């Protein structure tokens, strides 16, 4: 269907910069997530791709064609709004058929097409209902129907599950992903929910403060965060951060935190200022002989795993361990870090330092 290339895209609203020089590529047929906290510019980016905002600078290519200045009607992109935006004065059938009517499609063809889409979404029986009485899930399906009915080159979805209740979200997320796999259409999906992004996306762009922080597969983003923000934003509980003593030299493979030596992947980059060590809770094991030693402060039981909050010599740490492991509050344990999983970040720039884990890579 369509490849979308974003090149140095930016958007300013007066003095406020919503999106700063962003570049990334959405490959054909990808389920692509734009992830970030609210106000980070992800929705503005989506709206620029769809043509609802005109970029202040940069280019958008859809299948090799530059489209950033075209009106939305000439882009062949469908958009699913968070609040669905179904036309309240039309019934379900007319809502779904609305994009076809604008193309001047014949009534008979239209009826057939609407029915086909309704079957895919399982909403044939509500076609003649007014949209006002529909449940959240059905509204969502009608909104999707309106999007897929004209076989657009790409779908834009702005937190489409945001207005649904928790139980329903899960189901719609699966339905959405299945629908995408069946249609194979390029989909760009905005969300602030990291779980949703990890669960559904082929690729994720993490945005913060109007800039793209990282762009990659969910696995890359989770295992090799490029910045402190990504490391902190992705994962629950988030990554542990400890202050490293002194500077880092190239080739170094051990650092010290409050005097405790900790092995790290071999560093490919030196850093002069403050450095922060990051380790995910699941990469920490308990071992009596290991350093640093810590006291168990709290235990959150989560079924298969448990999250243990510890007060260590190196600082406050959360560890995720198997729930079969018996731990008691007040107990003293030694912490063993899985050294190959450790990331070091420059405190000044917020960026990761290149190492054996974080190869010399990536710029969009």
């Amino acid at each position, binding site marked *: 269907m369509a490849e979308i290339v974003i090149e140095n895209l930016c958007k300013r609203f007066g003095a406020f910069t919503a999106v700063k020089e962003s570049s990334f590529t959405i490959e054909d047929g990808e389920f692509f997530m734009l992830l970030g906290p609210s106000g980070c510019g992800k929705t503005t980016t989506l709206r620029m791709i*769809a043509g609802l905002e005109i970029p202040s600078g940069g280019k958008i290519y859809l299948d090799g064609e530059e489209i950033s200045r075209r*009106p939305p*009607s000439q882009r062949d992109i469908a*958009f699913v709004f968070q609040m669905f*935006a179904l036309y*309240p*004065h039309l019934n379900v059938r007319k809502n779904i058929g609305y994009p076809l009517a*604008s193309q001047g499609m014949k009534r008979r063809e239209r009826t057939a097409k609407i029915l086909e889409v309704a079957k895919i979404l399982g909403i044939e029986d509500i076609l003649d209902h007014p949209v006002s009485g529909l449940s959240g899930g059905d509204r969502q399906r009608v909104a999707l129907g309106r999007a897929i009915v004209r076989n657009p080159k790409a779908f834009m979805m702005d937190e489409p599950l945001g207005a649904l209740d928790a139980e329903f979200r899960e189901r719609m997320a699966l339905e959405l992903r299945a629908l995408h796999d069946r249609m194979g259409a390029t989909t760009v999906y905005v969300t602030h929910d990291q779980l949703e992004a990890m669960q559904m996306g082929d690729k994720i762009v993490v945005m913060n403060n109007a800039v793209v922080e990282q762009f990659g597969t969910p696995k890359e983003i989770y295992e090799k965060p490029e910045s402190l923000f990504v490391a902190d934003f992705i994962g629950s509980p988030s990554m542990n951060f400890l202050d490293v003593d002194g500077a880092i030299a190239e080739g170094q493979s051990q650092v010290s935190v409050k005097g405790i030596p900790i092995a790290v992947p071999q560093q490919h980059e030196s850093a002069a200022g403050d450095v922060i060590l990051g380790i995910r809770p699941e990469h920490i094991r308990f071992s009596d002989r290991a350093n640093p030693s810590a006291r168990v402060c709290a235990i959150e039981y989560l079924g298969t795993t448990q999250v243990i909050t510890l007060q260590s010599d190196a600082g406050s740490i959360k560890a995720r361990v198997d729930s079969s492991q018996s731990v008691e509050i007040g107990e003293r344990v030694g912490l063993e870090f899985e050294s190959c999983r450790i990331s070091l970040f420059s405190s000044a720039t917020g960026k990761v330092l290149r190492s054996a884990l974080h190869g010399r890579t990536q710029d969009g």
Partner: protein
Amino acid sequence: MSHSITDATLRQKTIAGTLVILYASITMVPLLWIFMTGFKTPPDSISYPPKIVYQPSLEGYVNLFTTRTRVSPEKLAELPPPKNFAEEIVRNREMVIAGPSKFGERFLNSIIIGFGSTFLSIFLGTLAAYAFSRFSIPLADDLLFFILSTRMMPPIAVAIPIFLMYRQLGLSDTHLGMILLYTAVNISLAVWLLKGFIDEIPREYEEAALIDGYTRFQAFYKVVLPQAATGIASTAIFCLIFAWNEYAFAVLLTSGTAQTAPPFIPTIIGVGGLDWPAVAAGATLFLLPVMIFTVMLRKHLLRGITFGAVRK
């Protein structure tokens, strides 16, 4: 019967109902009195004590629509028998019909000017309100205030300048002049009211239409307008009521061709004494168009007045 706290007892319902009916009756009495007077004969209309039960007559309506001349009884006897009920009524008063009165014409003027200016105010007001609501317009706030400020002055304060201006422009006593004048007065109300209504319509609807392949104007026309119907209807009623009832400008600026009903009705009083039934008949007919228009749009009006008060 259930006893939830919101259920009123029969006694409370009776009291509330009685009060409402009482209030409605009090406010309806003058209207009813006008309506009844229209069907009285002139002597009945001024009899004391006032008559509540009387023989209904169409004399008021006949007098309203005709001009009459008094003739001597001898001459009256020579005339051929009356052709219709109107002539019969008039001859009973020793008069003959000389011709139609100007009421029909004045009434038509009111309709042309009232509905014309309402249409124009709504048309221009909707476009302006949409623009103010959706686009970033330089100095939008100042412009909106400026538009509103045209309503701060009492209309009569600008009556003389407008009178002089209209005389120079040849707009005095013309339909166009009155339509323009009432539009100018109503447009600030229309822009402000409609902007409020359009602000309440989520932009996503239009954006969805843009995405679905429609132009901005099509999105406005096909998606925003149906949504704004409630607001447009209630604004139209306010505009029509103003234009329909307006008296001061009408007296000053119209005298012949474009005279509306409000300045005309009092002149009936002067023709052949105090003809209360004719005045009442005129007032009754004058009430009808706005009443019909309001009843037609009442569903919208009620929704419109409480619009935005409750979150949907």
